């Protein structure tokens, strides 16, 4: 397989035309096509919320690897998921710095407030909760990441405000 020949646009696709075009290009950028796998998985998840079976199948085909190969890689990364998350995915860090500054209590607080546990989704689909390892915000521990946004120096009260702001967004 030569990397210099541009493949024809992949069709039919389950992704938006913009993302499909981006993927068509992405697989040509690296010396080997499978180098495009991780970014593709992330973009696909951003667009449809999780990595569905059909997303996995299409990505495998686009790269020319097996679905098993795709699953091997995606299961390695805890940020990639194969089940839908809530509209707002609340990731609470309980790694050492956060733990020392109340990360666990924060997690328990979220569990009580949202009525769900690790990797669960609220019945209205607005929130999901995840306990995660260090998210690189140790200096301002305890820290929480909601989708791609960070919230730090949190207390249970401050966390309530954060959750409220997202609930308001969901109702917009």
């Amino acid at each position, binding site marked *: 397989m030569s990397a210099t020949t541009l493949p024809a646009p992949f069709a039919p696709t389950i992704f938006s035309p913009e993302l499909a075009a981006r993927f068509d290009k992405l697989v040509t950028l690296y010396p080997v096509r499978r180098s495009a796998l991780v970014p593709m998985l992330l973009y696909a998840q951003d667009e449809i919320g999780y990595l569905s079976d059909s997303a996995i199948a299409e990505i495998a085909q686009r790269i020319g690897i097996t*679905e*098993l190969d795709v*699953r*091997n890689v995606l299961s390695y990364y805890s940020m990639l998921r194969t089940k839908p998350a809530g509209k707002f995915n609340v990731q609470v860090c309980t790694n050492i710095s956060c733990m020392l500054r109340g990360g666990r209590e924060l997690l328990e607080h979220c569990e009580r407030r949202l009525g769900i546990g690790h990797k669960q989704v609220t019945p209205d689909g607005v929130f999901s909760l995840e306990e995660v390892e260090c998210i690189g915000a140790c200096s301002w521990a305890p820290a929480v990441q909601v989708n791609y946004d960070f919230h730090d120096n949190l207390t249970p009260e401050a966390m309530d405000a954060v959750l409220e702001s997202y609930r308001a967004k969901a109702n917009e």
Partner: protein
Amino acid sequence: MADVTFTVDGRQLTAPAGTLVIEACRAAGIEIPAFCYYPGLSLQAACRMCLVRIEKMPKLQTACTTPVGEGMVIATETDEIKQARKSMLELLLANHPLDCPVCDAGGECELQDMTFKYGAGGSKFTDIKNHRDEQQWSPVVFFDRPRCILCYRCVRVCNEGMDVAALGIQFRNSGAVIAPNDITSLDCEQCGMCIDLCPVGALTSDTYRYKTRPWELTHVGTICTHCGDGCKTTLGARREENGMQIVRGDNRDKSGMNGDFLCVKGRYAFDFANNPERLTQPLVRQPDGKLAPARWEDAIALVARRFREIREERGGAAMGVIGSTRITNEEAYLLQKFARGPLQTANIDHHRTTDYPGFVKALGGETAHFGSIADALTAPAILLVGGDPTEEHPLLAWNLRTNFRHNGSRIYIANHRAIKLEHQAKATLRISYGGYADLVRSLAASDDASLPAETAHFRDALRAEQNLLIVFGAELRGDAIAPLIQFGLSLPAAKFACLGDFANSRGAMDMGLHPAFTPGYQAVSTVGLSLPQMMDAAGRNELAALYVVGDDPVGRLGLAPESLRNTFLVVQDMFLTATAQVADVVLPSASLYEKSGTVTNTYGDLQPVKKAADTTGVRSDLELIIRIADQMGEDIRALVPFGRGERGDMGQSRGVQSGEADRHAVWLAAHNLEPKLSPFDPDALLDEIQRLVPGYDVDRFALMAGEPQPVRVAAGSNFPVSTGSESIQPANDTLFTSGTLGQYSEKLTEVNRFQAEKTLVAAG
């Protein structure tokens, strides 16, 4: 490569540069423990069991990835190393269950052995062990995650050895888990290689799982009874009420020419032998038209009496004999001798799946050009004309993949359809279904400008090869074979292999189960009837007796059973086949796993088979033929050379011309062999085969030591014009079928159904 000299545990050793420390040590008898390292597969360095101390290197090094270097000083067993290995074991055991008492691998487990050796009996871990339930992935493969030590052997053998890539690894750290390709099940070739290589009991087979302990089995190495490749398989058998029953097959000791390889048939399809439908009593047709059990004496006496009467009343021409492709050479040889001698008939044949006589004829006297299955592992270039080795010749496919991986061999494929081995091919030429004869003609022809560019290109690439192994099957028959041979002989050093379908297809032909040839392709003066001609003759009431040994022509050819109504039909078989159902006498026979002798694989490699199991109530075909002949009043010594020479003087006083028995005795003495004492000793017939059949005078001691011996037959000068190729019928077996035998293997049938459903789902 140049040799380097280094020191291991104070011993000075030498090995070619580039040799891995672990291999160099093993070659010198120094064992370095290893879980992830597996010879022939890519390096993984995942388990850290092979750590050794190499002077001037800061940390312990993995012996499985470090090549030896000039002047290296290596220590393989110091207290530091022992401690390191013990710690690794402790980590591996952190989540490992205490399953040894019930685990299939118990007693044969590399983790057990290592723990025993390094004594990681205690554990500092107090957390609850991760548990996951055992999963079934296919009719063959089970996975028990907690036992897995993540050595990746299974993943690599499936990717690299099998080129199936059905196993992956998912998640990470202590949650990492081996995963099958179809989410919760395996869509694959079901070879069981992954199970075989697993150093622990994480992958187990349904066939063997929780059935027995390895030390309760007797282990006998013999040859697989399925395809024509002739894999060695070590059968583990256990005493049961009705004999010695086989419970597993593998070649873990790598003792045969197949190394550790076995396909699904060799590994699991031995269970036909334990099928409850096995015949264990002779059946004789009663006046009411039904088959009923009979005593052995009566059944054999009846067969002998009728054979004698028919021979006397209607002559040998009204009799026919059909042999099998799964009996031993000794039995096939004896059967043709019985037909041509006591039965006085030339009507003898078997289910022919390829044109060996055409091949022998085309090769003429060029016997140095016969290939062996071993050549597929080493030949720098291979031409594959037709066929699909992945389905029909799994060992050939395995060898070709291995050769490609290790030596970068160049594989050329000419086929009318896409086949899996094209993944490894240097060049592929797609031709039409009927285009094989034309193709080989154009290979042999002097330059032909009208040739399509693609074909010309393919041919030119082949012409540039020095050592080409040319493999072809039943697509080429009769006169179509000659141009291919002619082309090969024009190259500096080509070898040939002709593919036939069953375990002893080649032997059946070599031993003269053919209306036009006696053993060793010696032409007969009066050609008898072929198998289809015998069936036609029976339909015309011209065949008064038919003796079928281990074949099912009625079922296989879809014949109307009525056509045999006026023929006295005797069938020797394991099962009540369609043919047996219309027989007058049915004699229950032993399978290839229940007798000793030799078989010849399709490449002409002669190998010994050994009795690994038995079923109460059955007899070998060899014994049955002899008993029938004996009851007919024939001289058994004329059929089987046993006992001393006629006059017991080894022929010395009257020279070697004094009679067959004395000639045999002289030959035995000259070959340092003893006369055999019993007519039922297959070695007595092997002696005669070696003495009389061209090509079979191989090194007997090497053969008995288990080294396959090449059979090289030269075409006799009186070779007939036609080799009777019109009655060839390829079996068209897949990986999951095995002629008329496969249906009696429950496991093979189950796997076949399972994979067929996968194919259906995939097709939508």
